[in-house]
């Protein structure tokens, strides 16, 4: 299950919303035993082409891919329920 799950957080440098999202993801990851290696961090200012290619319009944005299914979350992740819903769908049986 863990190999199939990939999570990408696109954030925008030190902007307030991005800083909040980074913190939230770290907290939830710890709480729910998310494999830290499964999370990729992309700073759109460092990798603008990547942002374009992946069509990241709004930051911060979280891309959760599980098998064929891809989910997108955008915002500072302050609404943890939305994040948990997505994670639950991606991995019905979290470790």
């Amino acid at each position, binding site marked *: 299950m863990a190999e199939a799950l990939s999570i990408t957080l*696109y954030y*925008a*440098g030190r*902007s307030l*919303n*991005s800083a*909040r*999202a980074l913190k939230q993801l770290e907290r939830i990851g710890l709480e729910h035993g998310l494999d830290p290696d499964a999370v990729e961090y992309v700073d*759109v*200012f460092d990798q*603008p*082409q990547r*942002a*374009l290619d992946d*069509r*990241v*319009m*709004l*930051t*911060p*944005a*979280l891309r959760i891919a599980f098998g064929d299914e*891809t*989910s*997108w*979350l*955008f*915002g*500072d*992740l*302050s*609404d*943890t329920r*939305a*994040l948990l*819903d*997505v994670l639950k769908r991606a991995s019905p049986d979290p470790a």
Partner: protein
Amino acid sequence: MNELSDFGRGGIEKQPTGIQGFDEMLGGGLPAARTTLVAGGPGAGKTVLTLQALVYGARELGEPGIFVAFEETAARLQANAAGFGWNLPELQDQHLFFLDAQPQPEWVQSGQFDLDGLLAGLDQRVKEMGARRIAFDAIDVVLALMDDRRAIQQQVHLLHNWLAERQLTALLTYKLGASSRLAAQLEFLEFMVDCSVKLSHDPIDGVAHRSLRVVKCRGTAFEENPAPFVIGRSGLHVALSRGHESPSPPVSTERVSSGVDGLDEMLEGGYFRGAGILITGAPGTAKTTLGGAFARAACERGEQTLFVSFDSRVEELVRNLKSVGIDLQPAVDEGLLEMVTARSVSGSAESHLMGIQHATLEHEARCLVIDPVSALAKEGNQRFAHSVVERLIDWAKNQGLTLVCSSLIDRSRTALEGTPLQVSTIADTWIHVEYHEHAGERNRGLSIIKSRGTGHSNQVREMLLDDEGIRLADVYTAGGEVLMGAMRYEKEREQQARDARRKKDLERRRLELDWETAALEARLEAVSRELKAKKAEQRQLLETEEEQAGKAEETSKQVRKMRGGDG
């Protein structure tokens, strides 16, 4: 040449959008390196305007552009653009880049966000392409995702600063809605930007009219009044009363026939080539026939001609005109005459104007008949019709077209009160046909109310229609009044009878004189013969006398000789 409207312009550098009329309204184009807001309801034409400005910049001015599509997909936009004849694949991606930025339905929002991701990506693209123009189409879609007013203002500020730092000429489109929350957003956007334009597409009395208004344009003079516009085959055309696109052709002194001999005489040679002619009159006064006569005369000269008929089918028109001796069918068959019909209720005056212009150019017409132009002022169009007709005449002049427009006048008004459209002031020649009611008859009387640059008859002439066409009757006056109908006919007959009588008298007198002369000559001949005879007799007599005298002398000589000389 200086135009009054040129004064007070200038200051800020402008970037033309290539949209006819719009650039003129803004004193040259969009303010360069600044942001322009284009607001309007759904379907108002915001996206077309924006896309057109970008395509023009990329194609004509070598200014690369980026189009950020928040609502419609890039593929759809490109398909729409193809419909306007803008070949986008040729421009992509070096000169025009489309970024699909539509929020996806599977996106889940979790808290606050910003546009940094978008701007970071765009930053990269701007640098790569050297972009000068950028459009954010349907910015409202993104703003709608934000919860509170402060967040929106913050992001709008962020965007505005980002644009200013990069010296981009930007267009933001914003879809107007009914909610007050959106109204507050719009107010803030309008406050922030340097230039703001509002598009509307409202039905007025059942006819949809598009119009455009420049709400503000900092640091420059602009056209403050709303202007109608249409979305035609090649994009937006904003209709300004006075276009400066092309210099007017030189004023012509060439005359073209009106198709009616008597009318040409009244105008001392016909209409001027390139003139705008207005024919007014109540229903049934043969305005259409005059238009038809002009069209036929034009075709006889071999000139391409366009006849636009409102609310009357072409077949009926051809048939009716044929019944008064004007057969247009041969010219239609030859391809000289193009007859088109339009429904006055099925579109705004503006869209009709555009249709007329397209048809004229397509047919390469030199002569144009609009029958009747007053159809443009039907319900729902009154407010705009005057400006449209004015521009029609203006445009026809610039194209060097000879334009004949008929216009229906309400019988309750008198001609001099002006036509409902008040176009009489801009027409060069104004012909009025009206019924004269007198002595229990109604007759058509034609008069020339004005004709610029030419002498013209001031007399009212009776217009006669028969199967040989239009004829203007000779003028008969009585007691200072031009006679018409039966009274004219009577007068005409009276005159003819008088003429015939006089002719007969003369003939008789001539015969009398002939006879008298002949008689005198005969007498002269007889007398002269008698004289000759008398003279001959006289000569004979004289000769006889001399002879006898000679003989007597001889006799006396002989006698003396015989007497021995003593006598």
